[in-house]
Structures are given as structure tokens and as C-alpha cells.
């Protein structure tokens, strides 16, 4: 189960295009942009604290408390997971604050609240652990089960200090409700800035990448487990903070504050408002607190609020986007990204023929039950070359790619890259060792901008100039374009660009021209010829377009029924009768 597809807020690094003004100024401008909104928000909070009546201010504080929890829910949402137990994490935070208050621990409420957030994190990781194997509906059932179990435990043990009527003490400078409102506003702004900042980092990009495809995330060198667990841990941290804030606000907390249904309602509101956006989290908080209040004042039963939220969430899901998502899309549609000019073939010269072996595969076999997908495949890809791997459908090309990149731990045989054995290494470690691959299907995460995706997949700090150079080399769209707005062909090229930016030793391209027009395939072939000299990587090109293979490759290996049946220069190999037979069948080959 997923929230509606969502786009990220612009990562700070890409907030301003680096023009002639230079990267220094653009970074300053980006920083000012990043700080302007929070400063504005804080100003609003302070003005509200002075002018708004006490009663409404208390409600507004509750809005901020819920908004912090929603920010956390947005983090797991970004990673494409659903958490139905956000308030159970909040309860851990509140319990911690109440306990530290009873113990009269030095540091005061602010330190206790932070401790509450930290205490919730292990619980987040604990619930994140099943998420490494469970997805969608199954994960939802687990988190709901956890919420109900936590509810039972909380009701049974009671919060510390409740029996002795011990209120959570606030320090003097946030003792009044007005002061506490400002404090809650500050916590929300800091949390929001933190979430925005994280969204722009590689960790944030990894969350969005995991949501789109776990395999592609691992293949671009990022561990899926780390991404999922960090999302759950930080989400729980935010929930813990919110629980701590609540404890300070109301002084005495009970199990009713953290019921299972409230967790579900929070989820429903997050779906409706869009917890992945700071604005959405705030809007969600406002709805949770003010809608029932407005109903009450109008003499309408407050339960109508949850009916409204349910209907709103169903509506949001039927539209495929939350309120915030819809607004973001509309804003984006006003400034469409420039479309790069079509790429024309430019002769890249003769394909280089490498000499030193780079990738050595010996006796590689893969079985799926009784089916032998690869049998004793021996293969050497030399350094500094472009090599083709062809074969009819079902020959085992993609299985070979999967086995080389580490997706098939059951594969037997040996694989070494530049003398380093890769056997037993998980996917993201092989990527780090210098083996990158692309996928036959489109696997570029739609939640990112071009720039954010390239930086994420590069897995290292990339200077803006280098990013621009690779984009120009392949003719990719500008860095502030959204992947979701690109056509399939551009996404394929983007995937290749990302692999190049990672500066690997070997790039395996699995049908990169699928989705490209013929002329564009040839243009890509010409670019690939230049890759070894420009980027120092060998290319193993898997492709059905034989024109492209002839143009780009110095050598070709032919697979059929999981075995290598021919290898050599393209013209010579493609002329062999056994290759024609593999492609066209016995009858055609004989005539």
C-alpha cells in the first residue's frame, strides 16, 4: 500500500541553477532560500503567540504537536512504506518524558523531549526490521498489530507519575501556554528544516529510490536495509518528539492520547493532506485539531470530522495525489523544464579493443528449480573496451546480468573484477566495488529531480561542472527537471548517465536503447564508444538492436540456452551460421 505518488521538495543543492554567477553565489542563494521559509514561519508563530486568544493558542500548540508526528509519517511515506503505529512511537516519547520527570533528571523538559525522540528510535528500527522482508499490505498488518499491542501494554502499565498526580514540569521560560506555543513552533520548524535538509541528501534520495525500486537502489550502491531502517528510525524519532511535546503541553498523559484508532486517523489524514510535504504535515495538523473544533462550535457532532477525513482520503487516493501533492504538481506545471534537443549520431570512431582482462567469469551456472538458465559460462571483458552480449529472448542475458550484479546468490562459479573476487558480496557492495548496471525496465525513481537522482546514483560528491558535462555528453534534461515528467527514452539515458557518474570499472547496460528511436540508439552507440577513453570504464552492452551493437562494440559474445555459443568481432560473429540459427531457427539458417 502506498501513499499517492509524490514529488520531493527541491533539494537544497539544486535550488538554484548554477549560471555564470558561479556555484558560490548559487549556494548562498540556496541557503537563503532554505532559511527564508523557516524564518517566516517563526515570525508567524511569534505574532500568533502575541495576538491569538489563549484557547485557540492551546489548540494551535496541538496542531504543531500533530504536525511533528505527521512529518515523521511523511518520512516512511517517502520510502513507500506505511506505518499505522505512529502514535505508539509517540507514546514511547511521552512515557520517557514522564519517567524522566518523575526521576527529576537534570536537563529539564527540552532534554527529556530529545531523549523521548531518541528512545522511540529503537522501536522504529524494531518495526523497520520486518519491513526488510514485508511490503505493502503485510507491513500494514504488522504496524497495525504493533499499534494494538502497544495500546494494550500502555493501558496496562500506565504512564509514570499519573498515579501520584505528578505533572510534567516545564522550565520557567516556557512555563506559560503562550511561551510553550512558541517553543512548539520552534521544535516544528527545526524538525521541518531537518526533514527538508535530509530530503536533499543522499539518504533522502535513497528513501525515494527504495519506494520506486529496491533492486535499482541496491544496484546503484545503496543498501536497501539501511534506507528502510533509517526511514523508520527517523520517523519514530519525530513521533517521539511529538509525544514529548504533548507530555509537556498537557502535563499529565494517559493511554487515551495514543489509541490505535487515533494512529489510523493520523495515517488517513497524512494520505489526505500529504505528510511528505512540510506544508502537508502542517495542514494535516490543522485539520486534525481544528475540524472537530469547528464542528463543535457549529453544533455538529465532532465525529463528523473522522467521516470527513475518511472521505477525503478516499478522494485523494482516487485522484492519485494528496492535497499538497496536487498543489506541488500545479506549481510545477507552470514552469515546465526545458526539453533537450534530439541527439544526432556523431561518429565516435572505432570501438577500442582492450587487452588486460577486467571482468573474468569462470564456470558461472544458475538454476531455477529444474531449469538451467546459465551453464558454465566463461566470459572475459577486457579493460577499456565496449563488448556486446547478444542472444535471442530467453538466452540468459538478463540472468547473467543479475548473477554478475549479485541478485542471484545461488549462482555458482567465480566472478572477479580487476582481480577482486565478487563472490558472496551483496548487490550494493558489488556496485561500490566498481560494477554498475542498468535495468531493462525503467527504474529511475520518479520522486526525484534529475540532479538529485544523478547525485544519489553517483554515490560520491559530484562537482556541478562534472554533472553538467555528463548530461551534455548524453543529452540529458536539466538538473531541475522532474524524472516524473520525462519520457522513457530520456529516463534510459539518465540511467546510463548516473552509472557513468559513479565512475565504475565496468558498466553493464541491459538494453539501454529500448524506448529510443533508431537514430537515437545509433547516437547512443557513438557515445558508448567514447566511454572507455572519457570515463575509464569498460562497457558490457546487452542489446537486441544489432545495428547498435555493430557500431559500438569491438567484440561480441553470443548466448543461447544459457551457454556461450560464439565470441569475436561483431561482423565475423554475426555471420556465423550457429548465431543465425539461434536467432532465426533451424529452417531459416539452413536455407
Amino acid at each position, binding site marked *: 500500500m502506498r501513499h499517492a505518488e509524490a514529488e520531493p521538495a527541491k533539494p537544497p543543492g539544486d535550488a538554484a541553477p548554477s549560471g555564470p554567477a558561479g556555484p558560490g553565489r548559487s549556494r548562498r542563494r540556496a541557503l537563503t532560500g532554505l532559511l527564508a521559509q523557516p524564518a517566516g514561519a517563526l515570525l508567524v508563530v511569534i505574532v500568533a503567540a502575541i495576538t491569538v486568544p489563549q484557547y485557540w493558542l492551546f489548540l494551535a500548540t496541538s496542531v504543531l504537536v500533530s504536525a511533528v508526528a505527521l512529518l515523521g509519517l511523511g518520512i516512511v511515506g517517502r520510502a513507500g512504506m506505511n506505518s499505522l503505529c505512529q502514535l505508539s512511537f509517540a507514546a514511547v516519547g511521552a512515557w520517557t518524558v514522564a519517567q524522566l520527570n518523575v526521576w527529576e533528571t537534570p536537563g529539564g523538559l527540552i532534554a527529556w523531549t530529545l531523549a523521548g525522540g531518541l528512545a522511540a528510535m529503537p522501536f522504529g528500527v524494531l518495526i523497520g526490521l520486518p519491513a526488510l522482508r514485508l511490503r505493502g*499490505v503485510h507491513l500494514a498488518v504488522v504496524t497495525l498489530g504493533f499499534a494494538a499491542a502497544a495500546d494494550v501494554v500502555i493501558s496496562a502499565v500506565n504512564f509514570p507519575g499519573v498515579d501520584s498526580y505528578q505533572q510534567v514540569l516545564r522550565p520557567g521560560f516556557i512555563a506559560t501556554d503562550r511561551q510553550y506555543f512558541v517553543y512548539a513552533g520552534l521544535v516544528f520548524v527545526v524538525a521541518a528544516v531537518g526533514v527538508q535538509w535530509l530530503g536533499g541528501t543522499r539518504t533522502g534520495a535513497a528513501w525515494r529510490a527504495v519506494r520506486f525500486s529496491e*533492486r535499482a537502489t541496491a544496484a546503484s550502491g545503496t543498501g536497501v536495509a539501511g534506507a528502510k531502517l533509517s526511514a523508520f528510525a527517523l520517523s519514530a524519532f519525530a513521533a517521539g518528539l511529538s509525544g514529548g511535546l504533548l507530555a509537556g503541553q498537557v502535563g499529565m498523559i494517559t493511554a487515551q492520547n495514543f*489509541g490505535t*484508532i487515533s494512529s489510523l486517523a493520523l495515517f488517513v489524514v497524512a494520505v489526505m493532506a500529504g505528510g511528505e510535504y512540510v506544508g502537508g504535515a502542517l495542514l494535516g495538523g490543522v485539520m486534525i485539531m481544528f475540524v472537530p473544533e469547528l464542528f463543535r462550535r457549529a453544533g455538529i457532532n465532532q465525529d463528523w470530522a473522522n467521516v470527513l477525513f475518511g472521505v477525503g482520503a478516499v478522494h485523494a487516493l482516487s485522484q492519485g495525489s494528496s492535497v499538497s501533492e496536487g498543489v506541488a504538481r500545479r506549481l510545477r506545471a507552470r514552469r515546465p523544464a526545458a526539453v533537450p534537443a534530439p541527439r544526432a549520431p556523431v561518429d565516435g570512431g572505432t570501438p577500442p579493443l582492450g587487452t588486460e582482462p577486467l571482468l573474468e567469469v569462470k564456470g558461472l551456472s544458475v538454476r531455477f528449480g529444474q531449469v538451467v538458465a546459465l551453464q558454465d559460462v566463461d566470459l572475459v571483458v577486457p579493460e577499456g573496451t565496449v563488448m556486446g552480449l547478444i542472444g535471442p529472448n530467453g538466452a540468459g542475458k538478463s540472468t547473467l546480468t543479475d548473477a554478475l550484479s549479485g541478485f542471484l546468490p545461488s549462482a555458482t562459479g567465480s566472478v572477479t573484477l580487476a582481480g577482486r573476487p565478487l563472490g558472496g558480496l551483496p548487490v550494493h557492495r558489488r556496485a561500490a566495488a566498481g560494477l554498475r548496471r542498468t535495468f531493462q525496465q525503467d527504474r529511475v525513481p520518479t520522486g526525484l529531480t534529475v540532479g538529485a537522482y544523478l547525485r544519489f546514483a553517483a554515490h560520491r560528491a559530484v562537482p556541478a561542472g562534472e554533472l553538467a558535462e555528463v548530461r551534455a555528453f548524453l543529452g540529458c534534461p536539466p538538473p531541475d527537471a522532474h524524472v516524473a515528467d520525462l519520457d522513457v527514452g530520456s529516463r534510459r539515458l539518465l540511467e546510463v548517465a548516473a552509472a557513468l557518474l559513479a565512475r565504475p570499472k565496468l558498466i553493464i547496460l541491459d538494453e539501454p536503447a529500448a524506448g529510443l528511436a533508431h537514430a537515437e540508439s545509433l547516437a547512443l552507440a557513438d557515445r558508448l564508444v567514447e566511454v572507455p577513453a572519457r570515463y575509464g570504464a569498460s562497457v558490457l552492452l546487452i542489446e537486441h538492436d544489432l545495428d547498435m551493437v555493430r557500431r559500438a562494440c569491438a567484440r561480441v559474445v553470443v548466448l543461447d540456452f544459457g551457454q556461450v555459443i560464439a565470441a569475436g568481432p561483431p561482423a565475423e560473429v554475426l555471420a556465423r551460421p550457429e548465431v543465425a540459427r539461434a536467432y532465426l531457427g533451424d529452417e531459416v539458417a539452413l536455407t
Partner: protein
Amino acid sequence: MLEGAIAGLAGGGAYAAFGLCLTLMFRLVRVVNFAQVAIGVIGLYTMAITSEHGWPYGPAALAGLLAATLVAAALGWVMGTWFGEAGADQRSAISIAFLVGLLAVSFLAFGTDPRRMPGKFGGSLFTVDGITVTKASAVCVAGSILVAAGAWLVLTRTVLGLRLRALSERPTTAELHAIPSRRLGVGMWAVTGLLAAAVLLVVAPQQTSDQTSLSLMVIPAGAAALVGGFRSLGRTVAGGLGLGALQGALAHVTELQQYRDTVPFVAILAILIWSQRKEVWDAAR
């Protein structure tokens, strides 16, 4: 312990029956219906309200069953009309919105005060060696087994079952063969809604529960359905009964008594992690 386990079978039978509803819904209309029991709650409270207004038990119960069936059919219609092409994940997210909304509707319509639930299955059926088997236990256990057997027969031996299976396995192909997908989907929702209400009519009068805790019986029901992998009807029944018996037995262990409701969560976790342990990646390739 044994006495507790036997007593727990009433709840276990209910979990099994709700679990069957969840399994059938997941198999046939691709949704883990988190609102399954909440639909039944609407029926239960309709029965309670009408009998408070002086209706005899029979017509009141019928009214309740009808209310649940209609609510379920309406929700099924919404699902089929707006989310016909959506995947199981999205449909299940919608059912969470249904649950939150339905509970609120239930509070609006029936209030939040505790109610006396008239019932026909109170008291014990027989006592052997000091162990009492209540009527509710017997009805729930026998009922869930009968429902599982009936559903199995319908699915495997009738044209309707064949159509339903075709629809669940290859929805587009089935529609191309003129199988009316939306009508069958609404029918499935209606039937499981009716079943959920019927189960609550049996078990709810035996316990003091409010709308919320009754609706959240969907969690142990989910655990039961997971035992069957959301596929096997027989294992779902076994899972539900086992879970109920375990909870009942734990009620007799003083130290664990108040935590016995956490059993479903532990069960869910253990079952899922075991059954999904090889699901390292999100997509096959």
C-alpha cells in the same frame, strides 16, 4: 489452562470466521479489508437499536444483517467504481479510510454509550470434567468450519466459483470473457459483510466491548488469515481457533493475563517473517 483454551475458542471461532472473510476478500477482490469487522459492527448496533425500540429479536437481527449487507455493498460499489484498476496495496489503504470513517459513522448513529446486546447464544452447552463448553463457542467453531467448507465447495464446484476464481487470477481476461467484475465484487463485499455481522451477533453479547475494540478484532482476524497466507481457507480456520485458544489459555496465567491481547501481534510477526523470509526484493526482476 485447558479450560481457558476451550473458553477462548468462542473468540477463536470469531477470529476464524473474520479471517475467512479477509482471505476470501483478498483472494477474490484483491483487498485486505481493514473495515471488515467495522461493517459487522454497524449490523450489530442496528440490531441493538431496533430491539431497544421494542422489535422482537428475530426481526431486529434480520434488520442488523440487512444493514451490514447494504453498507458492505455500498463500500464495494465505491471500490469497484473508483478503484477498479488499483492494486491490493492501494485498495487496502482505502479500506483503512473506510474503517476510520465507518467507526465515526457508528458513533454518530448509535452513540458511544455502552449497550446491552440481546443474544440467543448465552449460557453453556455442556460440561465435561468441569470444563464448560458455551453455546457461543460451539456455534462459532462449527460455524467457521461450515463457512470454510461452504466457501471451498462454492469456489471449486460451481460455475459462480469458477468465475470468481477467474476474476481474481486474471481480472482482465475474465472481463474479456464477459464475467461481470463489478457486480461480482459488490456481491463479495455484501456476502462477507453479512457474515461479519452474523458472527458479531453470536459473540458480541458474551463480552463487554465497544465499537472500537470490536472493530479492531480485524487484527487477530488478520493474524488468522496470515496463517493461511491469505489463500488457504482451512489453515485460516486453524489459525483463528489456535489464536483464540492461546489467548484463552494465557488468560489463566496471572503474569501474562493483561498482555494476552498482544498475542495477535507476536503471532502476526512470527508468521510473516517466517513465510516471507525469502522475499528479499520487491520485484521478481
